[in-house]
């Protein structure tokens, strides 16, 4: 497997505040990596560093480029949707396609048209005349028409209603993703993307608190629903987190054998959101 992004000791300070504090991570080809963290945790800073949109300290290699130098070379192989509705209001759909076609060597007009055919977006429309959901569809169509190695999505569905949000990820998965492509995505709505992620990265207070494949996460983390009488036994195994559910106790364990936990009660694979909450609380103590 190819390593597309390699960060070593990546730091970024805003004044005295460390948005990223000596972070190391790798992103391999063919993965869908979810970068999850609360507001101000350093997610967007990390993405900006990868995209060459911000200065940083430490080492960062993105597809063999230092993103600080020659962002425009990097952008041949990397695409990004930074936020919803960043297409300018005056831009016509046809002009957007024409622009991308003539400045991006990997953009395919046919692919863009193919994606747009399924929407209600007309060539003559201006971005300002489209709904928020349609602007995102347009942006996604433009980006999916680029044959890039790495796609970076920063809160791509923020402010969209649920129909568009579902469709966004469905299109991305069915029409775009394959073994040669890599997606790095951040979002608040973890539940939406957890089924499609192959890798998970938690970031909190400028540090990476978890970084592993989803399979590894499912192996390492176990949720057990325990009757009150066995609660003490469960607590002895040092759970990461516990909470009360319908008179029972729900424990979250990290790195405890599933066979051992099955004796205590009903075991599940926890959701990403639950692991995140448990990890974040652990960090606070």
């Amino acid at each position, binding site marked *: 497997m190819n390593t597309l992004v390699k960060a070593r000791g990546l730091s970024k300070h805003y004044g005295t505040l460390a948005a990223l504090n000596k972070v190391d991570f790798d992103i391999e080809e063919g993965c869908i990596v979810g970068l999850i963290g609360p507001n101000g945790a350093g997610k967007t800073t990390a993405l900006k560093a990868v995209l060459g949109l911000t200065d940083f300290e430490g080492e960062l290699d993105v597809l063999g480029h230092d993103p600080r130098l020659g*962002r*425009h070379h990097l*952008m041949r192989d990397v695409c*990004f949707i*930074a*936020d919803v509705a*960043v297409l*300018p209001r005056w*831009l016509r759909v046809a002009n957007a396609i024409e622009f991308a076609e003539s*400045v991006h060597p990997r953009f395919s007009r046919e692919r863009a048209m193919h994606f747009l055919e399924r929407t209600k977006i007309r060539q003559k429309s201006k971005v300002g005349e489209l709904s928020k959901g349609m602007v995102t569809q347009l942006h996604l169509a433009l980006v999916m028409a680029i044959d890039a190695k790495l796609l970076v999505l920063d809160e791509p569905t923020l402010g969209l209603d649920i129909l568009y949000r579902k469709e966004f990820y469905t299109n991305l998965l069915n029409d775009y993703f394959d073994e040669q492509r890599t997606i790095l995505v951040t979002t608040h709505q973890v539940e939406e993307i957890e089924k499609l992620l192959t890798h998970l990265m938690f970031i909190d207070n400028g540090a990476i608190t978890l970084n592993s494949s989803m399979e590894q996460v499912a192996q390492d983390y176990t949720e057990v629903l325990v009757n009150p009488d066995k609660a003490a036994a469960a607590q002895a195994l040092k759970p990461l987190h516990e909470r009360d559910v319908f008179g029972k106790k729900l424990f979250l364990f990290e790195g405890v054998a599933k066979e051992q936990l099955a004796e205590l009660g009903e075991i599940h694979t926890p959701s990403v959101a639950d692991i995140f909450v448990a990890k974040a609380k652990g960090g606070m103590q």
Partner: protein
Amino acid sequence: MNALVSRMNKTLIRREFWENRSLWMVPTVVIGILTVLSLYMLIAVLVGHSETVNTVDANGMHFRIDQLPDFSNAAPEQVVGFVRIVTLALGAMFSFIMKIVLFFYLLDSLYADRRDRSILFWRSMPLSDTRTVLSKLATAMLTFTGITLAAAIVLELILLVFMLIMGSVLGVHPWSILTYPGTIIGSWLYLAYGLVVQAIWFLPYMGWVMLASAWAKKTPFLWAVLVPLGLMGAEGWVFHSAHIARLVFRHSLSWLPLAFNFDPDTAFNKHGDMVFTGGNLVGLDSLGRLLASPELWIGTVLAAAFIYGAIWLRRNRSEI
């Protein structure tokens, strides 16, 4: 590869025209308004014409038709002078209008997309910030020369047709003007030359406005205008002098006597009419004088510094 690059450049400049429709709309509207006004005058003349009428009252304005030049027995120098003065007057008018349009265009050029965050889309394309900034400067220079020239020529041709019709009706016979096609085209070449000179001469102003546009977190207008005014005020306050003000305002006019063999002191006779001798307005002498002028080169170096600053800001400090 070269074809690809030139296509990219063309698209970048077209992009500017998609976004900034005022670049061509303003001169078009001005041509439209002046055409309608002239047409109104023409009709007023045609309708009001009789053997005794040689003045026209149009909307309270009083036009003396007998002042319409009669070229049938005019000396060639007079025809040359007339054509030049019309071309240069129209050129001066449109270049003044386009300077205002381009001031606002450049003011927005590196600011508007930061304000609406669409810069994140533009910067997701494989385009360097240098190329982007230079494409906007190139758009301003091309618009200033190309569109100003085209607008002046179109309006001059329209007015010429009206004048020929009006003159024929009044029996003034301006047709002989058409026997000097070289004069008409020559006057356009003078205008084109004057516009190209200005496009280069005004580079420091353009660079300054782009720097303000790339710098401002809000209201680039205030940065572009108040910083120089503040410097001028500070100079006056501290040194009781006005060198900066003189430099800035003098520079906007000093290209004229350098680029053309045109001396404002002798160009007007004692009645205040412009005198054209029909001599060479432009020659190797004027061109040499222009290229040898330190003001041109200092201005260009200053412009390069401003534009470099704008590119640097765009690359490193583009967030509002």
